[in-house]
């Protein structure tokens, strides 16, 4: 099947849908987009199924050649987008024709961008998902990131529909407002003083930041216990190993672990953190499960109320 040919894969480009759910019991992690909101918009701006398969581009450097006529859109981090050599708008659907090149340059802000095509890429799911998890060798093409010469199958969609999202609805990847923490898990093993250290200090995203987790550097926080009986870890959980430097666990995390956890980030902030590059300064603020629940429901309503603008050809 035709589709797009990978000329340059970039630093790390992964084939993904919304993620692999319901298989934690056999040790499979979720994978999926680190920034689900940007992922959702990519599919919505092309009228795709909301679980259609797209590319997650980390940092940038992707070059593809179209073998079909279709629509494309790039959302997420600020990677300059070129089609057939011309710089074009991001968060906006564009026509691309067979033989034309698409280039996503290196990001100016926001580490992850999402490239969707009309109808999605046609990839065989594994355990109900196309999400690539390299550590598990599952999803995508052979469970690996894109390589030069790969063919990404998709159908020809010369008709189709495309939309653009006005600037005021696009996220700001330079936003450094505090990351909201829902206290939980072993929070009782962290004294009030230790919690205050977390909520009043500044931490830096370290170089050891990948899809499994982001290690932060800053004032150490020490729990009163060293380890626990291994237990399930949810997205955004903040684990504190013996050195007291917090690790926020992301989409490719191990499903169980034995380090104490002080709680978890609110998911929009987990995504915001995963968009940050090493060296970025972050801080934390407490948030409750009640507030998080209400905010999630309202955010979905806002998302549904926004009307993207149809792109005419």
């Amino acid at each position, binding site marked *: 099947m035709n589709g797009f040919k990978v000329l340059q894969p970039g630093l790390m480009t992964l084939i993904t849908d919304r993620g692999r*759910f319901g298989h934690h019991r056999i040790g499979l992690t979720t994978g999926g987009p680190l920034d689900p909101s940007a992922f959702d918009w990519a599919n919505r701006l092309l009228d795709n199924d909301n679980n259609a398969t797209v590319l997650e581009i980390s940092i940038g450097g992707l070059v593809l050649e179209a073998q079909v006529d279709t629509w494309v859109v790039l959302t997420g981090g600020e990677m300059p987008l070129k089609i057939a050599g011309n710089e074009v708008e991001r968060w906006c659907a564009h026509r691309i024709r067979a033989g034309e090149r698409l280039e996503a340059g290196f990001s100016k802000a926001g580490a992850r961008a999402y490239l969707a095509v009309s109808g999605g890429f046609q990839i065989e799911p594994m355990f109900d998902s196309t999400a690539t998890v390299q550590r598990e060798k599952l999803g995508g093409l052979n469970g690996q990131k894109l390589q030069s010469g790969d063919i990404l199958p998709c159908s020809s969609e010369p008709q189709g529909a495309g939309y653009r999202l006005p600037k005021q609805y696009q996220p700001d990847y330079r936003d450094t407002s505090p990351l909201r923490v829902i206290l939980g898990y072993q929070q009782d093993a962290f004294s009030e003083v230790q919690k205050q250290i977390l909520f009043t200090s500044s931490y830096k995203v370290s170089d050891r930041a990948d899809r499994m987790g982001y290690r932060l550097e800053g004032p150490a926080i020490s729990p009163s216990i060293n380890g626990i009986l291994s237990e*399930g*870890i949810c997205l955004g959980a903040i684990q504190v190993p013996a050195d007291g430097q917090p690790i926020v666990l992301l989409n490719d995390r191990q499903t169980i672990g034995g380090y104490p956890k002080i709680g978890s980030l*609110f998911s929009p902030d987990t995504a915001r953190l995963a968009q940050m590059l090493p060296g970025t300064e972050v801080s934390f603020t407490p948030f409750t499960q009640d507030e998080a629940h209400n905010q999630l429901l309202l955010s979905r309503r806002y998302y549904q109320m926004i009307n993207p603008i149809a792109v005419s050809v």
Partner: protein
Amino acid sequence: MRIEVAGENALIVYFGEETDPRISAQVQHAVAETERLLGSAIIDLVPSYASLLVIYDPFQTDHLEVRRQLRSIAESGAAESTHEGNLITLPVWYDTESGPDLEALAQRAQMSIDEVINLHANTEYRVYAIGFAPGFAYLGQVDERIAAPRLSTPRQSVPRGSVAIADRQTAIYPAASPGGWNLIGRCPTRMFNPDADPSMPVQVGDRVSFEPISRERYLELGGEL
């Protein structure tokens, strides 16, 4: 029983603090009941040694409802923690060739290699958790006399099927991977096969026993060298 917040759409239920088959049985009871009562509102469940992480869809339910259900499940489970699980027998070729740490482990335990093999093979284990990697099942408890700490320097690559001990846990490496457990043999049964259904021969809560086999039998059963 204690319920804690885990995240914006996740609660974790603790049934105890130690590795114990009765606590594990309560976890299994809770898994089945949570699926039955909450159905499609569940995104994922992570049962482990003494806890169950419940991740739910916040657009279908909320923490108040899930907490209420979990409390009633846990209370009913305390009375009828009879979950036995299936018994699965796995063949193991125990040898110094297939288990490069067998000799050191025997020395440490001050017993013969055959005694170590007997103690490992004549114990019925329980699958307490699956994690670390796809299909990696944590089995407990290993006889105290042959319990051994992890290697100080983990191996770069442990072959698929390696049977290993760390502290009072034992496991079979489902795929070649780095690892620091003590290797004592090889099992020809695939512990994780994405193309098979089911993809694993065991699930959390099952019981496992090991049957010593020869090198020839190991090869006949499809074992790789």
